[in-house]
């Protein structure tokens, strides 16, 4: 059941991204293009998703445990460190370069969009570089700012 739920949640997420046209990388770039032909749609997507999540989470997190498993898996880190800042900056740059973040890129794959395939090649390549970056200790998690 746990796995079925995961699949269905993925389906709902992906159809939400498709209905809101977030799989259209141009539309994402239009949102970030404030000096050009600005399109605030992404803001509406994020706000509506945020409100539903915020209300839902409020109720859910009062419970002792989730319905299908024994505990909630929530992030435990609290400090704002170099890794968070540097990582978010790199993500933002990458996001703007092509107009994809991970969710829409996966969903665009489903429609056979070639741009998303190239994006995924880059994302998979980054998996091999990450150990090197960690080794260089670029922004190790201990450095608070």
């Amino acid at each position, binding site marked *: 059941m746990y796995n079925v739920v995961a699949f269905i949640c993925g389906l709902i997420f992906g159809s939400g991204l498709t209905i809101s046209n977030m799989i259209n990388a141009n539309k994402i770039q239009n949102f970030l293009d404030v000096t050009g032909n600005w399109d605030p749609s992404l803001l509406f997507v994020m706000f509506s998703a945020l409100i539903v*999540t915020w209300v839902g989470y409020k109720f859910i997190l009062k419970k002792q445990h989730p319905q299908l498993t024994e505990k909630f898996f929530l992030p435990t880190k609290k400090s704002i460190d170099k890794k968070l800042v540097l990582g978010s900056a790199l993500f933002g740059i990458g996001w703007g370069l092509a107009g994809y973040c991970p969710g829409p890129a996966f969903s665009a794959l489903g429609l056979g969009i070639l741009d998303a395939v190239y994006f995924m090649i880059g994302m998979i390549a980054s998996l091999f570089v990450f150990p090197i970056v960690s080794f260089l200790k670029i922004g190790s998690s201990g450095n608070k700012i």
Partner: protein
Amino acid sequence: MQNFTPISALIGGSLIGLSTVLLLWLNGRIAGISGIFHGLFPPRKNDFIWRLLFLLGLITGSLIYYFLPQIHFTPRTHYPIFLLILSGFLVGLGTKLSGGCTSGHGICGIARMSSRSFTATIIFIIFGLISVYFVRHILGVL
């Protein structure tokens, strides 16, 4: 603002919210796409199949396009391949370092009132704005 589509944005966004709520309520998991993806490597026992299935759902969720004629979508063509690969690379690396993307930090994290997620979201939006300005108005890629 001729491309502004508030109604479909609100419907789609609410569905995304429904997905994050169901995943936490039933499975106790945060619907952060980069986190679910990065958790696949290396594969861990009892923590692999659900991730794969969620991503598979995410990929096939877009097939709703074929059932709803209201969705208009023309894929862009001739976008520079180099930019696409570099973009994926930076998104992969950045989200791994910062522990989240638009969904994990921007939606789930902010909904949990996490100061890390607020910070991350503000930073990636600012850098996204700069990056698009660079690509569209300096490089001239459209």
